[in-house]
């Protein structure tokens, strides 16, 4: 199994009492709550944390994109990936992901990803996402066109990376007279494409398609939902597309906290992971999460039903119990990941080792303990340790 370290780069110095005056830290929280001097220290601390992970032998470091919020301060993950490109040597750099479809001109991102891939000698992973619902408020992009723009932007970018230019691209949302990328990407035919998702059948169907076979990465969700979506990838591959999905196409992303004992881990992580779920994640309204047309009516109903379960203050015990986070002693965390791997067989694990307000000293301790006590054992997990996939008799979804 490959193990990577993911950072959201939250504004951890946020005055958490804003929760009393604003229902969300997204889009409408005034940016006077952001202090650039504190931001300077945070950005540099977070980059140090990812560089430490690279030094300690993680297979990759990961960044992502969000806009106008305190939850994740990387409106341009390309900037962070560039900073990491020259400070890391061997590990992969994963952008998980960039929202190509939010841009009026997705080729700007295609160029930047190609530059990163060339600078790093082919260490880039390109994640293609649609952006979360609130990003459609920030950018003004119509969520009704989100899925078709996403797919069209992908077609444009992949053709730009792989086809000899110049050529014209004639799409519905994008029309380019001249597509002729300088530089072309280092990796051939192009950097690996990943599809991070909070759980969407549309994304799974698209990622698993035999023309693509992209890595599907399920972002933090209850473990039963992770299992359902990861199995759905294998099921779609087999039942609809007639091939057997390889386990290295399947990934799981989850917050992880390790300390000397289970009790100490819960004690140290509690306020910081609870801040993530109770302050950084909530949105103004359901529509801000899921603007109209962002997903099909069927997916919307499923997503809303799943959300209705956890209103109010989330507790760390609940997160651990439902498998939304992994937390405990090295032994517990190792065992938990091994069990989950046995059930789901993912060959890519993306760990979020800083979350919410977790301060620098605890983050570094978490990273070091995880790297020395957990990572060596779980890196040896292969398909031999996976119980294997059995096609359910009745088709899911």
């Amino acid at each position, binding site marked *: 199994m490959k193990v990577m370290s993911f950072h959201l780069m939250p504004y951890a110095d946020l005055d958490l009492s804003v929760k009393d005056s604003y229902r969300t830290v997204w889009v409408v929280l005034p940016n006077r709550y952001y202090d650039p001097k504190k931001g300077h220290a945070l950005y540099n601390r977070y980059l140090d944390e990812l560089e430490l992970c690279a030094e300690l032998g993680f297979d990759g470091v990961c960044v992502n994109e969000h806009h106008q919020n305190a939850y994740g301060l990387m409106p341009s993950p390309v900037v962070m990936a560039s900073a990491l490109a020259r400070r890391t040597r061997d590990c992969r750099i994963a952008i998980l992901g960039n929202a190509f479809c939010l841009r009026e001109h997705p080729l700007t991102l295609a160029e930047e990803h190609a530059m990163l891939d060339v600078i790093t000698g082919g260490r880039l992973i390109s994640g293609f996402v649609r952006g979360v619902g609130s990003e459609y*408020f920030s950018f003004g992009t*119509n969520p*009704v066109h989100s899925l078709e723009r996403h797919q069209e932007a992908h077609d444009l970018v992949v053709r730009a990376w792989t086809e000899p230019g110049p050529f014209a691209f004639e799409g519905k949302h994008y029309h380019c007279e001249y597509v002729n990328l300088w530089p072309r990407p280092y990796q051939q035919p192009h950097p690996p494409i990943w599809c991070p998702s909070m759980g969407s059948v549309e994304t799974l169907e698209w990622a698993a398609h035999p023309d693509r076979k992209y890595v599907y990465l399920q972002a933090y969700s209850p473990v039963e939902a992770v299992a359902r979506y990861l199995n759905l990838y294998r099921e779609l591959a087999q039942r609809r597309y007639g091939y057997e999905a390889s386990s290295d196409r399947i990934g799981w992303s989850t917050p992880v906290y390790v300390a000397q004992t289970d009790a100490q881990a819960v004690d140290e992580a509690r306020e910081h992971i609870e801040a993530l779920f109770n302050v950084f994640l909530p949105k103004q309204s359901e*529509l*801000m999460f899921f603007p*109209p*047309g962002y997903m099909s*009516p069927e997916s*919307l109903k499923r997503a*809303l039903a799943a959300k209705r379960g956890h209103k109010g203050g989330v507790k760390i015990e609940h997160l651990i119990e439902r498998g939304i986070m992994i937390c405990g002693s090295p032994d517990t965390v190792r065992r938990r990941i091994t069990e989950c791997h046995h059930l789901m067989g993912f060959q890519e694990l993306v760990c979020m080792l800083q979350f919410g307000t977790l301060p620098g000293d605890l983050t570094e301790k978490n990273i070091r303990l995880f790297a020395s006590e957990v990572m060596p054992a779980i890196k040896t997990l292969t398909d031999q340790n996976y119980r294997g996939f059995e096609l359910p008799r009745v088709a899911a979804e």
Partner: protein
Amino acid sequence: MAFVRHTIDINDCKLSFVRGGKGAPLLYLHGTDGLAEWPAILDTLAERFDVIVPDHPGFGASEAPAWIDDVSDVAYCYLDAIEALGLSDLHVVGQSLGGWIALEMAVRSTHRLRSLTLISAAGIHVKGVPKADIFMIDPEEHARLAYADPTKGAEAAERAGADKYQDLAILNRIASARFGWQPRFFNPRLERWLHRVKVPTQIIWGDGDRIIPPAYAEAFHRLIPGSTLTMIPNAGHLPHVERTPAVTQAMQSFLRN
């Protein structure tokens, strides 16, 4: 008054509408909530008019084929529908989103139109006067804001909360976003063509409209030559629902002349 449902095919757009009453033809164009709640004023109008009430493409029982991207496509679709139905001397009444559609029709052609009635219409932007962002707020809050009377607002909020996960409500929200997401419920190029609205136009607005503030009524009044403006006291964004008698009276005296 019995309304009967019909379907007409316009360039592969299956347009569903109900029709009832006798008299001169009158086309009613609904707002973002569709026709989930039937406005009683339509029954009154059907006593004197042949009232035709379509679901806009993507709303209710009408389909939204891929070629319908924006309100101008909807306007052309309705202009085609009017021809296909052989209607002329048509009174067009549009509320909110429907008022915007009516204006997009009228700047393109008033050939078959007799008059225009705009009730709290969308379609333009008045600098510095924001409309409510109905996509940022929950349906309950949207419903509450639509009424001037807090009691009626609270009742509407309760109904909206009960319905918000129903297929029809989801469908209507998606269709509203298709036409009104960006820029929010206006066409920057409409304003410069409003002088082309060359039929008698009546503007009706609730003086307590918190979705599209009354400043928009003044702007339309200024931009549409010869238009008349009727402000309805103690009414919100749905004056024809909240103050039905006052709006009925204003409409009937306008339509008679």
